[in-house]
């Protein structure tokens, strides 16, 4: 039982996680014409293999390309800023004693659980008053706020692991405090910061509610919203296979990040409790 359990378990996990991914890839190779007629089945039926045609069409779609640009730009900026702000806060939480520390953590937790939809009405109203409706800034601000809890949470867990005495030790050895910080602390803290950044990026990349509520043109519309409004060459037929191709393209960055950094992400999500 024990001998067999593991391989079965692994197989289960792999099927569970990858089957839908394989399916959406398979769907993205079905010819659009055959989708209109109906092309059921996991794999494209005989003679309905579209090759790269769907991908080429999606790639030629400037709205979608613009959405990729928006998503990359907005998510990266929000991630960078959010991690910077979170690093300051997490350092304070991990190393300093100050009044209101528990409050910060509870607040972060409360915000992580906040019902996002209840904010979009008033936020829309505020953003149009400030003139940042349908702009990158208009999305970066809420993304930062909503990724901060996750980033603070992860970073403070990481920072508590850092042997800060080493900094003092280095100073005793004659290093300036800046050198001590740069040579000793930065290398130790970097993996944590990096992990927090990846998790933050995932969150921003995934957001849909703000994406559809606070934008109205391709000026700032991110990928998830763009997918929901995706139009193929023929507006009257739902371009399932084109959409699948677009979905696959939108997933590629995630897969690349996951492939390279899986160890760090798992460590981040389990707050460093599980070593690689």
């Amino acid at each position, binding site marked *: 039982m024990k001998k067999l359990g593991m391989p079965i378990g692994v197989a289960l996990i792999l099927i569970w996680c990858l089957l839908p991914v394989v399916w959406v890839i398979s769907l993205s190779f079905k010819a659009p014409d055959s989708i209109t007629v109906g092309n059921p089945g996991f794999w494209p039926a005989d003679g309905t293999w579209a090759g790269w045609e769907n991908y080429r069409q999606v790639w030629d*779609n400037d709205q979608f390309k613009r959405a990729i640009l928006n998503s990359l730009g907005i998510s990266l900026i929000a991630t960078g800023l959010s991690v910077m702000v979170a690093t300051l806060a997490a350092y304070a939480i991990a190393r300093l004693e100050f009044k209101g520390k528990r409050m910060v953590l509870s607040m972060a937790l409360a915000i992580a659980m906040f019902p996002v939809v209840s904010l979009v009405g008033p936020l829309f109203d505020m953003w149009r008053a400030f003139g940042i409706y349908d702009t990158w800034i208009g999305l970066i601000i809420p993304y930062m706020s909503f990724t901060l809890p996750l980033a603070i949470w992860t970073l403070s867990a990481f920072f508590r692991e850092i042997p800060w005495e080493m900094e003092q030790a280095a100073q005793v050895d004659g290093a300036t405090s800046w050198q001590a910080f740069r040579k000793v602390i930065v290398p130790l803290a970097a993996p944590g910061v990096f992990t927090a950044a990846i998790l933050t990026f995932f969150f921003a990349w995934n957001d849909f509610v703000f994406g559809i509520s606070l934008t109205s043109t391709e000026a700032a519309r991110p990928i998830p919203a763009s997918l929901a409004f995706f139009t193929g060459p023929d507006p*009257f037929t739902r371009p399932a296979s084109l959409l699948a191709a677009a979905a696959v393209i939108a997933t590629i960055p995630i897969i690349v990040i996951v492939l390279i950094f899986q160890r760090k992400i798992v460590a981040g999500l389990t707050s460093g409790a599980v070593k690689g």
Partner: protein
Amino acid sequence: MTHRSRALGTATSLGLVATLLSACGGSDKPVLNWYVNPDGVEVFEKYAEECSTGDYDIVLQQLPTSATDQRIQLARRLAAEDSSTDLMNLDPVFVAEFANAGWLAEIPEEKASEITDGGDYLAGPVETVTWDDGVFAIPMWANTQVLWYRRSLAEKAGLDMSQPVTWDQVIQAAADNNGSVGVQANKYEAYVVWINALVLGAGGAIITNNEEGRDADVGLDSDAGRKAAEVVQALADSDAAQSDLSVSNEGTSLGRMFPDPKGDQGAGEFMTNWTFVYKNYADLIGKPGGPADDKAFEDLGWARYPQTVEGETSQPPVGGIDIGVGAYSEHPEHAMAAAECITSQKAQVDLALDAGLMPSTNSAYDEVAQSGDYPEDLIELFRTSVDEGGPRPESAYYATISGAVQERWHSPASVDPDSTPEESADYLEDVLQGEALL
């Protein structure tokens, strides 16, 4: 189709480049943003370029596919008093709401009277652009639905298509002969198009006294409403219903007209659908989803929208696109001039010939008829359908009305003539009064 999309790709990238350039502030030439729905974009591209002058450039911005999403995107921009919303493609049902909210610039006297009194514009589209004694948009193209069918299927059923047919006859004919009936019954705007046409066809109306806004009279709880519900129920219960009826849209039933003869997908269908269907199948001859050859294509028939009640003239749905000018535009005069240019007769003819989107004026119709691209009787059918068609209710609260009707009439299988009309009428009244949630 692929060819079309490639053209679209290049065209939009030009547009994008133009946007970027103008965003960089390369010149002081004003840029007019033209928000377009995704239908017929390559013709819009052409006219964005042709109608740009030495004084301004027109740049396209594309809206989402569904009418509901288009409305949301535009309404939020306009509610934000956005000065960069200059020109917009409006579904006819948006006009009343937008005009009432003060989001649309009124069309100047001269053009307005040409639309209302000139006699060239067809009656259906004219009705859609007027609100509160003013004209708030210029009709660009006018859409309508007709009954598309396989001649062989109708023949087998012994249905005389030269005479007006009723929904009951069509459903019966399809069910008895291994055919199906294609409609649009997903929970979205086009389902209301169907319900509205059914109610109008039975001599009723979803609402009357529209100008009363929230206090308009709801007419669903009536014999006409019940008759409409009977048709929906008859189809939902019939063997002629397509399996995806509750999520069907303009595209889902296209494939059922010329099913793969090897499969067991039936002998074709009767389908109420917009004018684009003809061009759609003409482009698909010999391809999957289309007729096998020219001869099979000749089996595609068309007739006036079916009657709800036998003997009572049907009122085909009217759709299309009107061009509105944003009330907060920084360049209202330029935008108004551009609006006239992009709705010119030439543009209308191009839309019809290149994209299958039918004109809103008699003169443009004449020109399209002369081109020989469409069978003459089809052109006449489109023209009379638009002219005698029944638009959806013109009301500042149309989005609410549509949403409430969808809420109570969806799914089609749940429609019951004994309860649905009455319940939906009560609900619609409550929602309009703000006493019920939507």
